[in-house]
């Protein structure tokens, strides 16, 4: 550097000397101009003055051209170095700095009692700097040690998604043996390090998999969305980031995702780090506490699995099922299970193609789908309490009405009329009150109610269903919720006309009313919608928004930095006399409908009210439903679920619901009798 100073000083001295020389001696040249300029042209005047003029003119022209060239250069320099200088400086800065990113651990996901559903485990990761690329032998050695081809090692090191200057991940979750070997032979592995990173871990395996969801490398769509939405508090992802893809992991991504560390470095054109600059340490994401209770959740999942297994043993497909346990006083979800399920662990560090294909296969019955919120099924008889409210509200019947069930029903009562619609109990229930209609799930009662609405030309049933939240999302804090469908005349017309049906086929018929009165036809509901509707019945009106998030835990201590604000989403008004009738009917379902069925509930201390349901479906066995709430006197819990492709609700979903109540009250179901004659 001293030499540089010497040269600079020498240059300056020489330059000053040159300028001095010019100042002192340069004048003589001006005299030359004076002498010759005056004498020359005049002396040569006469005959060829014109050529002399041409030459001078051309030289002046040359001077002008030279001047123009220099003016153009200076003008351009002016615009680049003075006007747009900052923009170029930013580009130069961009060129010569680079950022190395380090992943922050995601927040954990805990149950309501603080037990870890999703955590982080240390994962020993072999990383290598890009220099290793130039060492074939080292890559071969590393490949042999880890047990992967040298070509794969090369590709891993070539991946720059964590930043040009960052160390490249070669292998995650390597064994202690590998770590020890690399540690003992540092000379053989220059540029290779072992880092302790974190990976998602699932201490309870696939428990609550549908609720917590899984994480995965950010997709190109997510990447694009995050870059377009550049508001202050949203996270802007980088390629390679691990983000929540479904469930709570996706819903509360902004809470769980930490802030990645950024180390700014100065680099040269070849990417070599010249200097380290500012450093931002990674900040781990916040822990999220869910409303789930792991014990209830586990009981729910085990019960689903067990009951489905038993049904399969007796010849039913039992392709799927779900159950939800909700605290109807505030909307907290205590358990939400869906079967078949999947292991979110498969997605840690990237899911393999075989695993992904297995999850997508048709005969796997869509294990990735959370049936509790995304499964849309006909409701079957579990809708009958709502139909009853509708009938009472709109005066289609009153609390004293009664009907006679002979096992079959036609529109005009004439047995020769078509179509003949049957009660599920084909020998007939005999004389039925409205409460009996619910208890015994007598279809004839509800056919009459549907007919009554048709005759009144009223949409009262659909309006009542909508008042209870059917046909619209509950807006539970989980992604992927379906809205179901409450069909009416307008919908039917639009839907079937669009499919090219005739006018008569697309017109609302009386039979459509009878169908939706028993939750059949084009009715579609989700389990969470039905559970919320039953919350209203249990609470005598109010429904709280269902949610799985209890709060975000503080980094220090046990408190919450933010808590879910419970919110009442609707309050359905009904006459108390009407409520009593329905309550009577629903209590009857538990204790009167069938003696075998009652044995499962009499061994529970609290009084339960509920409703079974069996909905016919195209393409196979029906779907069985059961929803109940307890304690009847002062309801606290609503538990409901369904099971696909079974005989009926009483022998499928009911057992699961009973097991969940068993877990809630610590009183397991001891009855082993089964019923085949309830709805």
């Amino acid at each position, binding site marked *: 550097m001293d030499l540089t100073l010497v040269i600079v000083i020498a240059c300056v001295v020489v330059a000053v000397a040159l300028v001095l020389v010019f100042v002192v001696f340069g004048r003589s040249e001006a005299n030359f101009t004076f002498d*010759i*300029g005056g004498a020359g042209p005049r002396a040569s005047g006469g005959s060829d003055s014109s050529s002399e003029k041409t030459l001078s003119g051309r030289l002046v022209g040359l001077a002008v051209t030279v001047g123009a060239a220099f003016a153009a250069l200076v003008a351009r320099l002016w615009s*680049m*170095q003075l006007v747009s200088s900052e923009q170029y400086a930013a580009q130069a800065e961009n*060129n010569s700095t680079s950022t190395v990113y380090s992943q922050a651990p995601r927040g954990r996901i805990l149950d309501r009692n603080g037990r870890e559903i999703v955590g982080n485990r240390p994962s020993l990761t072999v990383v290598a700097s890009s220099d290793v690329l130039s060492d074939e032998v080292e890559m071969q050695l590393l490949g042999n040690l880890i047990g992967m081809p040298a070509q794969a090692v090369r590709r891993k090191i070539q991946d720059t998604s964590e930043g040009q200057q960052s160390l490249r991940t070669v292998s995650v979750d390597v064994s202690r043996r590998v770590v020890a070997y690399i540690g003992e032979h540092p000379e053989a592995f220059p540029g290779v390090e072992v880092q302790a990173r974190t990976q998602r871990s699932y201490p309870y395996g696939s428990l609550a998999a549908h609720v917590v969801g899984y994480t995965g490398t950010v997709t190109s769509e997510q990447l694009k969305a995050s870059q377009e939405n550049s508001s202050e508090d949203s996270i802007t992802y980088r390629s390679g980031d691990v983000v929540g893809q479904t469930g709570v992991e996706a819903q509360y991504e902004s809470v769980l995702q930490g802030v990645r560390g950024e180390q700014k470095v100065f680099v040269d054109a070849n990417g070599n780090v010249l200097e380290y600059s500012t450093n931002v340490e990674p900040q781990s994401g916040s822990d999220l506490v869910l409303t789930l209770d792991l014990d209830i959740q586990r009981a729910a999942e085990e019960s689903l699995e067990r009951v489905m297994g038993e049904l399969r043993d007796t010849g039913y497909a039992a392709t799927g099922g779900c159950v939800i346990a909700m605290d109807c006083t505030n909307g907290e979800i205590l358990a939400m299970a869906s079967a078949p399920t999947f292991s979110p662990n498969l997605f840690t560090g990237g899911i393999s193609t075989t695993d992904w294909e297995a999850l997508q296969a048709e005969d796997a019955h869509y294990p990735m789908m959370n049936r509790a919120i995304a499964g849309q099924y006909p409701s079957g008889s579990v809708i009958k309490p709502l139909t009853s409210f509708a009938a009472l509200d709109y005066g289609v019947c009153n609390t004293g009405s009664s009907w006679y069930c002979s096992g079959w029903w036609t529109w005009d009562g004439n047995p020769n009329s078509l179509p003949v619609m049957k009660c599920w109990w084909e020998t007939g229930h005999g004389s039925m009150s409205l409460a009996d209609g619910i208890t015994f799930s007598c279809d004839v009662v509800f056919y009459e109610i549907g007919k009554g609405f048709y005759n009144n030309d009223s949409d009262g049933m659909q309006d009542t269903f909508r008042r209870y939240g059917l046909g619209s999302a509950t807006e539970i804090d989980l992604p992927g919720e379906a809205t179901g469908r409450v069909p009416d005349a307008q919908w039917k017309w639009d839907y079937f006309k669009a499919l090219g049906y005739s006018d008569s086929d697309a017109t609302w018929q009386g039979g459509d009313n009878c169908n939706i009165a028993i939750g059949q036809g084009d009715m579609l509901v989700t389990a969470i919608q039905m559970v919320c509707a039953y919350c209203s019945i249990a609470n005598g009106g109010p429904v709280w928004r269902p949610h799985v998030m209890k709060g975000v835990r503080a980094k220090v201590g046990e408190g919450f930095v933010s808590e879910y604000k419970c919110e009442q989403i609707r309050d359905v008004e009904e006459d108390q006399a009407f409520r009593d009738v329905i309550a009577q009917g629903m209590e009857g379902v538990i204790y009167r409908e069938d003696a075998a069925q009652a044995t499962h509930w009499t061994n529970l201390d609290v009084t339960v009210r509920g409703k079974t349901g069996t909905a016919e479906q195209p393409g196979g066995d029906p779907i069985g439903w059961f929803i109940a709430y307890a304690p009847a006197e002062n309801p606290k819990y609503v538990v409901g679920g369904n099971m696909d492709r079974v005989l009926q609700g009483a022998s499928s979903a009911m057992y699961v619901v009973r097991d969940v109540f068993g877990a809630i009250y610590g009183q397991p179901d001891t009855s082993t009798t089964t019923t085949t004659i309830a709805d």
Partner: protein
Amino acid sequence: MAADMTGPGTSSAGPLSSLTQRARGAHVSGRRSPLDGIYLSQLIPTLLILVISVANMWVCSLSLENASFTSHLAGIAIGLVAAAAVWRYDYRALSNMTTALFVLACVLMALPRVPGLGLEGGLGGLGWVRIGPLSFQPSEPGKIVTIFLMASACAQYNGKIDSFRDYAKLCGTLLVPLLLILSLDLGTGLVVFFLGAAIIICSGAPRAWVLGTIALIVGAAAFVVIESSIEGIPHILQEYQLKRLTVFMNPTANASDDGYNLLQSMIAVGSGGFLGKGFGNATQALSGFLPEAETDFIFATFAEQFGFVGSVVLLGLYAWMIFSTILLALRMESTFSKLVLVGCVAMWTFQVLESVGMCIGIMPITGIPLPFMTYGSSSMVIQLVAVGVVQSVWRHRQKAA
């Protein structure tokens, strides 16, 4: 080299033009300063540029592998010695040697094509020759030879070209060495073309013919470019040559090396700002982002360190040097002297315009050296020889007295 080049015809008592004889007594006022034989108005800016060049190359040599400081100094030293020799030599001896100059120009331009002599040179260029341990670009001395060739050819008409035959002959004289070099080294070819054209124009060719010729050339150039862009026919310009010519219009749209180079060069110049990043502080040029930082993009290297102020000073020195040469040409009596100076002016102007212009994206990319600044001894020596020529013109201005 310079001595070789001017070798033929070393007779010191060359025939004098009638015009210089008339200048008798003009400069015999008795005030003879010790530097009387030196045209300071042109030499001082040149030397100042050399000082800048030395400082600039020192910084380059610290961080760039290809730039050797001693080699640069050696180039300057050889150049100064050659320039001194040329300065002492009476250039007027060459005014009547058109034929010899023509042959010499053609030989120099064709030399790289001689099997055994040609050498694979820089970026796609083949203009290098190796003789013994020495390798150089014969097209560089070819430029000086062409200046004298065109000046001597044009001077015969004494500032008045009346017949179209004569005009065509002059153009033809230029065309032969031009075509020889143009097909080999586009950049040098363009320099030769511009200095030749400037001499012909300044020698008094009628305006209409000049304009006609320019129109013809523009048309031909357009044809060449268009022809080379059409798929499926044999191209006159290689693809890389065409790309270099057109990339400056939109550097970001072109992912080629040239587009990248130009972008980096513009970032270097632009990020220099008003005062520059400081001596030796060129993050673009000296950290390897700017390729060819010591040759093709030397101006960007300089401008990044010294900013707008430094760039204007450097360009001002060039302008000073060039305008004083024009001034000298205006004062000279002899057409030959005038035209020689015009040739030097045209060469410097075009090389500065092209070399600086390409760094800032207003000229196509061709590897033309920036006089006195670019690393490379062939160019340095020849540029200093050209300075020697100007000084020689000054020194021999009053020979008659």
